[in-house]
């Protein structure tokens, strides 16, 4: 199962590296979103720093949806069968797809944080806070990719996938957005201390989304 998962993840990541869509389109988009937020909020650097955590995670959330759509587009081009005919274990396929998207979301998050530190002049405060931020980003990436892959697969052949995916994906992942924002607030603002309860909530959310996704993926593909 894990070997199949790694094979699927490697395939998706290799396609992504060759197509360069993530690097050339999605990552610049996260910069564009942050600059638009900056325009909307005005030049007050104090206010930008105060809101940086929320803005970063909104940008990551929006861009993660594009990463999910890219991952599903790869399968759609191959007939939307999700490698069913290759004999791969479906649980492994799910793990692989989630892993690939989670790595992409993690990279998007790093790019977003780097851009923010420049345009909002935020910086990162405290080694412990940075370590917590890495854990928060990893956990949020797993939650976002687990939910995204399931609903991307669900709407793979639907004419209204472009509207349905955001309709369910954005509200569904908003608890991740709230918890990640709270958990990384001290790292970006430099004030206050990290409350580990938010990391705990993110961990529970990652477990819940991944577990529900794991039990759902096989029946979803079998009944289609």
């Amino acid at each position, binding site marked *: 199962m894990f070997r199949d998962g790694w094979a699927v993840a490697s395939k998706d990541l290799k396609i992504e590296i060759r197509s360069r869509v993530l690097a050339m389109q999605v990552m610049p988009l996260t910069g564009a979103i942050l600059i638009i937020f900056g325009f909307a909020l005005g030049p007050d650097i104090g206010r930008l720093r105060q809101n940086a955590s929320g803005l970063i995670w909104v940008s990551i959330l929006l861009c993660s949806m594009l990463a999910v759509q890219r991952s599903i587009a790869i399968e759609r081009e191959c007939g939307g069968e999700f490698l069913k005919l290759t004999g791969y274990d479906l649980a492994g396929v799910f793990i692989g797809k989630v892993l690939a998207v989670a790595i992409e979301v993690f990279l998007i998050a790093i790019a977003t944080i780097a851009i923010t530190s420049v345009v909002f002049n935020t910086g990162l405060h405290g080694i412990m806070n940075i370590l917590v931020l890495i854990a928060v980003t990893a956990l949020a990436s797993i939650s976002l990719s687990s939910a995204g892959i399931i609903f991307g697969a669900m709407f793979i052949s639907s004419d209204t996938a472009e509207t349905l995916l955001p309709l369910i994906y954005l509200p569904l992942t908003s608890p991740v957005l709230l918890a990640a924002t709270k958990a990384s607030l001290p790292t970006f603002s430099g004030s206050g201390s990290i409350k580990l309860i938010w990391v705990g909530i993110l961990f529970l959310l990652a477990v819940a989304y991944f577990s*529900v996704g794991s039990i759902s993926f096989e029946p979803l593909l079998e009944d289609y």
Partner: protein
Amino acid sequence: MTSLLETENADNFSDKDKILLENILKKTGPSRIKYALGAGSIITAVLTVWLGLFVTPNDEHLGDTVRLLYVHPPVAWAALYLAFGTTTLASLLWLWPKTRSFFWDKVAGASAEIGVLYLALTLITGSIWGRTTWGVWWTWDARLTLTAVLLVLYVAYLAIRQLDGTSKAKATRNAITALFAAIDVPIVHFSVLWWNTLHQTASVLTPGLHLTVPLSMGLTMGLGFLCTTLIWGWMMKARYDIELLKAVTGEMESQRAILQRRSEL
């Protein structure tokens, strides 16, 4: 309901279909359980209104606003735990191979619809409470925001239920969406503990089951809970029957279309 076979639509059905439809109409028509749930709902609603408006005292600080307690927590309970809990359980029973039956999909859909209605009422009554106690119709409080998110999630679930596909694919899709949506329910429940919220924590009944309000208020609130539960049951039965009729007539229409197409070839 029985008038369906006496209208111009009657020509659309074969004799075999008419017998099947008659049986379904008998099953879904007036029944003792429907009358009992309906009567119970009306009686408890009238009693709650009477006790809530005319018998129970007003609050020293909140005045008459406190009477919203007889409506707001019962509709919130019925939405979050009763309706969405039933949807989640029924969805799990569809996904579990040993219990898989289209009955569970219909139950999940019916309960989610009622849940959405109750949750909208929760937000409306909460908003009225907010206006009188906090001075605003809406505030970006964690409990309120997450409840609004939950409403959008279940509206999305109802939208997904309308998508095309085979019955089996649709039911699986519905069940998976319901399971994901259910993750938000405990977050809404614990939000008052995790965030610094304006919304109060549970305060009428302590964890040790000690009532903190006068008995008449506690009883009226309890009656409110019973009322919303009975109304949920009443609407569930009605909504399930409609789903059943829709499924049967839909299947008949499909069969008729296939036979007509075959006869044309």
